[in-house]
């Protein structure tokens, strides 16, 4: 079962949440971030080239212009490969674990998998981010030595930064699965 809904992120950009329910114990949430806008790309390129042209008039060395072109190209490629995240996915499988995947604009994917034995809970936290107060979903991990303590907090959807309404949808689904997992688990 698959459905798609449109939300907005904390800056007002448009996000698309795709939910796939593969089975009662396996669900996937896919958040698509807004694409690289042409305006910002043009603005950055123009700034860099104007600066390069200014330096060129100062020093009359044409290497500066070629260098500016290279810098722009390499910078764009580096941005697409290392910084710009296109899609963030959360896959939660009962009794196996939670997997978070970030796909970059250049196609690179980075995945983290947390086993269900290490997951204590999934919660929505409130945080102060610059001048804003935002909500974010995070996974609380158990301490292997002391099961009642929390050893780590792993935030989810860090690049997409959806708003509370989107987070509540994801939170509810995750809690259903976690409740089922806790009911059927062997260890306390």
């Amino acid at each position, binding site marked *: 079962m698959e459905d798609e809904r449109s939300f907005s992120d904390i800056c007002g950009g448009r996000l698309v949440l795709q939910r*796939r329910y*593969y*089975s*009662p*114990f*396996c669900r*996937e949430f896919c958040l698509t971030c807004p694409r690289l806008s042409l305006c910002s790309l043009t603005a950055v390129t123009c700034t860099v080239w104007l600066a390069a042209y200014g330096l060129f008039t100062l020093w009359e060395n044409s290497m500066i212009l070629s260098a500016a072109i290279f810098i722009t190209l390499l910078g764009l490629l580096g941005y697409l490969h290392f910084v710009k995240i296109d899609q963030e996915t959360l*896959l939660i*499988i*009962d*009794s*196996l674990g939670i*997997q978070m*995947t970030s796909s970059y604009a250049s196609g690179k994917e980075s*995945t*983290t*998998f947390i*086993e*269900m*034995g290490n997951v204590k809970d999934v919660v929505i936290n409130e945080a102060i981010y610059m001048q804003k107060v935002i909500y974010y979903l995070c996974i609380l991990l158990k301490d*292997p030595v002391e099961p009642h303590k929390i050893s780590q907090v792993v935030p989810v959807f860090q690049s997409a930064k959806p708003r509370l309404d989107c987070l509540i949808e994801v939170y509810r689904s995750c809690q259903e699965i976690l409740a*089922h997992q806790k*009911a*059927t688990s*062997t*260890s*306390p």
Partner: protein
Amino acid sequence: MNLPHWALCVSLSSVPLALHSVPAIHSDLGLLTRVPGSLGFGAGSRGLKVLGEVGCLPAHTRQDPNQRQAGRVCLGWVAWGRGVALHCPPASEASTVLSFQQLFWARQRVPGMVLKAFFPTCCASADSGLLVGRWVPEQSSAVVLAVVHFPFIPIQVKELLAQVQQASQVGVAVLGTWCHRQQEPEESLGHFLEGLGTIFSHEPWLQLCRERGSKSWSCKAIRQQVPVAPGVPSEDQVMLIFYDQRKVLLSQLHPPTVLPDHQAGDAVASSGGLAVVFDTVARSELLFHGDQYDEGPVRLSHWQSEGVEASVLGELAKRASGPVCLLLACLLSLVSAVSACWLWKLWPLPFIRSKLSTCEQLRHRLEHLTLVFSTQRAQSPTQLMSSNRIGQLADALVPVADHVAEELQHLLQWLMGAPAGLKMNRALDQVLGRFFLYHIHLWISYIHLMSPFIERILWHVGLSACLGLTVALSILSDIIALLTFHIYCFYVYGARLYCLKIYGLSSLWRLFRGKKWNVLRQRVDSCSYNLDQLFIGTLLFTILVFLLPTTALYYLVFTLLRLLVVTVQGLIHLLVDLINSLPLYSLGLRLCRPYRLAAGVKFRVLEHEAGRPLRLLMQINPLPYSHVVHTYRLPSCGCHPKHSWGSLCRKLFFGELIYPWRQRGDRQD
């Protein structure tokens, strides 16, 4: 009450036991209330298996519905082939630990319990047969290792499994049946497969089935012993997880989760569900020796069935490596013996050797080679063996030295004038300036004298550059040190002069105030001076104070130059350190065989049809490069300067000499 309440179902496939003292056994899933003391029971224990600590989930007890306690599973038995009754004394009590051949957890039947079946991708196209692997009850997961094909003799299969179990300490057993059939289901095969369930009984019994040529799978896990409704075997929901057996076999998880020590037989993995899978596959190598094409009694299908990997060159290299290693080890020991010879211990050779970083590097390289013999060399350097290149380099060196000396002369002329607008003491200025100029003149003459021989020396030195890039860099560092030797000398002269001046000034300042430094007590004491002592002291003090700016300026200039040279040498040393400690093998492994170094796993959901079991593909998530370097760093030389910034500034202010080349194990000069 001090006994935990819990419900536990145990099934034993072998001889039923007679119970001595029968506790209160309830018919529905062996609900147990209170059992006094320890129980005795009849024979039937075959081999000991310690289960360790497990958490127990109690069934709805009569007294406390939600009580949960962890207890130590101590003993269990079975009565008449089924049923339950299990008693667990409190954890603090030392208990007699008994075990049985197959002892299983079966929890309270909760609808929707998922069973995970890890299935190797290589067996997905194998013919029908029996599934062989390991059952992990705590995670409710079955790790399938191989498929045994028909025809087989059950006794031989059991023997092979016992053999593997003994060799690898992994509880390998028959988990179920695998059916790879044509479009129309064959009834006879189905009945035959079900009949196998009685020969190799396992709880739960897996039945995986796939239609030839299609992607639809069907899986069933049947539990005979714990019926929801009496008489009807219950089924669990199954989730299939495919894994690449060869990659999981060769891979190594970081950080390696330490599994608890294994006594004979199965042990409970207290953490890391996936680490158990990796561990199981890695330890069952013995199972992968036989193949379905071999003539042995049992025909298996696993990752080796796709073709045993080998290469002719690889095999030849393996055979040749033994004698080659031996030969090279002999040569290295010869070289080490020569270098440890007593001739090298005659002074001043050890002193020179400790100062030249090339010798240090050569020694390190020799140690390295002797210790880890098969390591490749750091980098194959560009060979400067052609005399053309050496000649060019030699021709370039002398003008560079000349240029440096000329620049120094300009600097001194500038100092002798009015540097930066400061007014110097004429006489002292001229004296110092002429002294240093003469020194430079000597140095230039020396360089010109040596210039015919430089080419030969460089050629011989360049020979040793074939030992690696690090040696070449160390040679460079030493050449820089030798070429800037006069700067070092100037720094020493300036520093000594300045140091003397500062000590003199501080001592005369104390005299001015009527105090004295007590060497015995290491402190400042008051002292009464004579009049003429005071007079001369004050005079000298005044002279020193007025000459201070000149000396300080010379000291400052030469110290800066020296620090510049030291910085350049330090950077080269850092680079050499970096190259030495870089784990090239691990980086190469991460580049070419990323599955060997695993940070974890990742799952991908395969095509899903309603009504069919969920299928996932488990792939290895390789370790990021930064973690590879961090984890596998080789120990570096350790030649870092031991100064902190504070002590460095203090030394500079008081004019004490700075020695930047402290090597490991060097005493204070």
